[in-house]
């Protein structure tokens, strides 16, 4: 009796193993995050990824402040700044100061980050155009 059960279990386990490919089973993607393939498989996904760039560009580190009136206008001496103020080293053209360096790194980093995101978008969009 028990032997019979075990035989069936072995058969069932064997079938399960054969019917599911290992690689597919190991391909796990998180529920709140998506791989590139999944992201661009729908129009909504494409738009959401595109809008991330609008959102990104509107942030204070980009056109939300720094490249519009923040960092740039400070350097153009549009503000009267005291020496304890955050932007002061920037207004002084103290390019070696860590704060100035941080501004530059953040602003450029953000631009490059957008470019990377857009590149990924275009690359996948092109691939989809070709396949469909």
């Amino acid at each position, binding site marked *: 009796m*028990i032997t019979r059960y*075990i035989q069936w*279990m072995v058969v069932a*386990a064997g079938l399960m193993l054969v019917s599911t490919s*290992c*690689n597919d*089973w*190991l*391909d*796990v*993607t*998180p*529920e*709140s*995050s*998506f*791989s*590139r393939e999944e*992201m661009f498989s729908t129009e909504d*996904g494409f*738009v*959401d*990824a595109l*809008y*991330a760039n*609008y*959102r*990104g560009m*509107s*942030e204070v580190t980009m056109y939300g402040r720094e490249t519009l009136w923040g960092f740039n206008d400070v350097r153009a001496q549009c503000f009267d700044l005291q020496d304890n103020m955050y932007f002061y080293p920037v207004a002084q053209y103290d390019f070696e100061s860590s704060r100035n360096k941080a501004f530059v*790194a953040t602003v*450029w*980093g953000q631009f*490059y*980050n*957008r*470019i*990377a*995101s857009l*590149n*990924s978008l275009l690359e996948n969009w092109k691939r989809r155009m070709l396949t469909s």
Partner: protein
Amino acid sequence: MKKKSNCKVRHGGGGCKKLWLIMRFSVVFLFITLLTVSASTYSQQAKLSVKLKNATLKEVLQQIQNTSEFEFFFNHEAVDLDKRISLSMKDASVEQILSEVLKTQAVSFKVVDNVVFLVPETRAVQQDEKRTITGKVVDLTNGESMIGVNLVAKRGADLLTGTATDTDGNFDLLIPADAEAIVVSMIGYKNREIPLTEKGEYFIELEPEMGDLNEVVVTGIFNKTKESFTGTSTNVTHDELVKVSPTNLIAALEVFDPGLQLIDDNDFGSDPNRMPEILIRGKANFQGNPNTPLFIMDGFEVSLESVYDLDMNRVEGVTILKDATAAALYGSRGANGVIVITTKAPESGKVRVHYSFTGSLEMPDLRDYNLMNAEEKLEYEKLSGLYGSSNPAQKYELDEEYNRKLGDVRRGVDTYWIGQPVETAFNQNHSIYIEGGSDVNRFGITGRVGLTDGVMKGSYRNRFGLGFKYHYIGKNGLTVRNHLTVDHVKSEQSPYGSFGDYTIPNPYDRMKDDNGDYLYELSYNMTNPLYEASLNSFNKNWYLEVRDNINLEWRFNDHLMWRASGSIGMQVSANDIFRDPRSHDFDAIRDSNEEDNVQKIGSYKKIDQDAYDWEVSSTVNYNTYINKHLINVGIGFNAREDHSNMTGFNGTGFVNSILNRPNYALTYQKDGRPMGSEATSRLIGGFANLTYGYDSRYYFDASFRIDGSSKFGKNKRTAPFWSSGLAWNAHNESFLKESFIHHLKLRASYGVTGSVNFSPYMAQTMYSYDYGSSQKIYDDRFVADIMALGNPDLVWQTTGKSNLGLEFGFLNYINGEVNFYREITDDLLVDMNIAPSMGFSSYKQNAGKIRNQGYEISLKSYLIKDPSNRFYVSVNGSLLHNENEILILSNEYKSQTEGTSEVMRFNEGESLSAVKLIRSAGIDPANGKEIFITPEGERTYEYDPLDVAIVGDSNPEFKGIIGANIVYKQFNLNVNFRYRWGAEIYNGTVADRVERANPRYNADIRALEERWREPGDVVYYRNISDYQSAVHASTRLLQTEKMLQLANLNFEYRAKDQLASKLGMSSLKGSFNMKDVFRISNIEQERGLIYPFSYMYSLSLRATF
């Protein structure tokens, strides 16, 4: 192998209905039976008629059985049943018939009631001349009494009668007067033959068989005999563990294995809600990833938290696997070592109840804190210049303040702040285990309540558990085991917050105002930590875990076995954090006087998690032993999935602290959103193992595993792991057989294992809707952005482990083991900075190689071994030396760190634990400033970070345990000290708490007493008035550690059996345990700044009913 139970058989009237009671048991069995039957003359006068021609004896007996009431009882090996005889008798008594048929055989008979016993003649019992001998059998090595030992009396080569020892190791045996000796035997022990003397009492010691035949290395997959094992393992039994720590399994393990280190958490001290950090041998990670070993319980992976919350009384034993030999079977999970835990299996027999109680007093260890008292503190403030000013008006105010404080001090205000948040905690653990059942169906039920209060007031961790075990052990070779456990853990962080907050307030400040309310603010605008503690804020956690393991084992024959097992576990947990609206946390909001303040003050954070995991595995094992050749082959596979899911939210706006449920929040946190996350990982692996042994002398072992995991990049989905080893049991060689060396084994192994210690999705470039800026919506659309650059080429971090080991034992007094090891970890994961033009600042890469090498030594020696008085004294010691070196760093890593500070980067050839400091010549007696030494040997006051050099290593030269064990009669004393020697440690707390101590806050007394005050002071610490400038890390504060700590002292009393049975118990043990009571170290540093360390006294009782 199960011990043979006491072999007594009773014959009730008519208990045996069949004729052929052919006993396949030993001769001993028969004799006991004979002796227990009293003689009588039941139906012996019955007359029988028999007529048979050329019949076998079997047929004769059959006929007698059929025509009379007689039944026969005999050992079928002693009587030749196939012997043919012809017989014709009429109205003869059974005695007459039997004398006739048995006359050609050396068999006599005896009739008792209606049972006829056939007895080989030479062994016939002379009923009239007998005597009783009594005695006790103990294990020679530890004096423990032994249950189920076989004793057989013999005369010449004939075995006469026998018995087995009872649960207390005692026996009594009725022997014929002419018996000459008794043979004492037990599986796993050497047989002994004791000549019988006139005296009736015997004390017998048995010596374990060489080569630890009975000892098994539990690898969790394929178990090995210790003799055939080519790797390094440490086996610890339950009894040994509870002697060290009656409640904390992980703390106990450190004493038994020099390679296992418990990392002292200098911040979190003895916080019961803090998971311990464990390291086996050496550290091999750049970026803080802990090298936590893999935990396997009853064949399945479990979390560190489950082990931490495990009831010690459920544990049967623990095996620590350090090198590649067994760890390779765990492949990608084995690199950090494997700790295999086996829980108790129910034993058959009538229902037994085991109860165990441990009550402990846990006391805060504040001996590391030498803070100033009120008077000293005020003096320190004055000396550091807090009351000095050139402005007369200001000076007047400052003088007034000083005098007011002085007045308070004179009135006797001297608040002992650090004593406020701590208390002596009483912890208790009750655990009950009920077991029993038949040989086939056995059950075990466990129950447990463990209440642990930490030494910080209000912190606790309470554990509740229930378990049910069912074992079916079929006679046909099938075994089914099912374990179901339900565990519930409730914990809370102390409302008193961080202990460090109590080291700062000034002792001249009062705690309460004149109305008896806690002051809202202390001197220098410091918040009163006791005010915070008096509020209703809380931080609570709980979890509930249900787990079921099922295991099928099918033994087809003596050689072939198939095993299949499955496990499923589910966990639900929650975290609730409430901040009282009166808390200082909301000061800034209150001060802003905005209109909607009421909606922002007070907060409730709730996080719910649910998780499940499952695992299936199947193995087939074949072993055979032909002509001294032992072959053992095993293959198998396993697959598992881990899944967890979290959701949470923040509510704000609480009107008062009594309405502290989430539903009383006025709103959600402003600009906040509900939280959520999810993670899944999957693993599948196939493995094989081969062991070949020749003549118990030479062993060869090889393992292979291939693993696939969802955590890896698509390009590298699977990875192979392997190991192989050799062992030589020299003590089984003929030239050592009779020498003073009773154990000598040499073994070597090498293998490759892996570790997965990054999050599941680093290998892929992922888009997430929940990442980056707090603003996640643009133009009414939820946006999805790239989280990070994936690295599809990410590979497993692999560790190649080699091990060379020597085990030795002399004269049964000294036992020891030495292991040399080398572990090279390759493809270490590092966050690589990349050019900003890539769009991201860093990504994960395999970039480096680290080597750990060293040796472990452990020794145990008996000084006194006196089994007859049960008096044993033994000492033990262990030592670990580990060296760490970075072998290779990728070129990318080198180029990216070029030019950065030496302190921040790793270099090839350095140790991971290298201490990088600037050289110091100490404090200048002229002005109290520190003098630095440049690499050129010049002296300067200027600190140049580029002068930093390697000046030491924070890894100790040696660490280990020294201990002793004394057994005398019913008493057992076990003591172990932990030592650490030669670690070069930069005493950072001195920099913070002595030199940079802000004089407005309280500080270590050294800040006042040992600092430079005036020219000519030759002191260790710099100018007392200088507290603002940075303290540069220099060799001045570098100390070489020498530490000795009492790990445990355990005193145990085992009640005599008579006493226990008087109390209605079958056994009773009581013990007293001290933990961490004593510690000396040459480094004075404040330990446990967030949660203090503690020491503990416990009392345990273990009773079996």
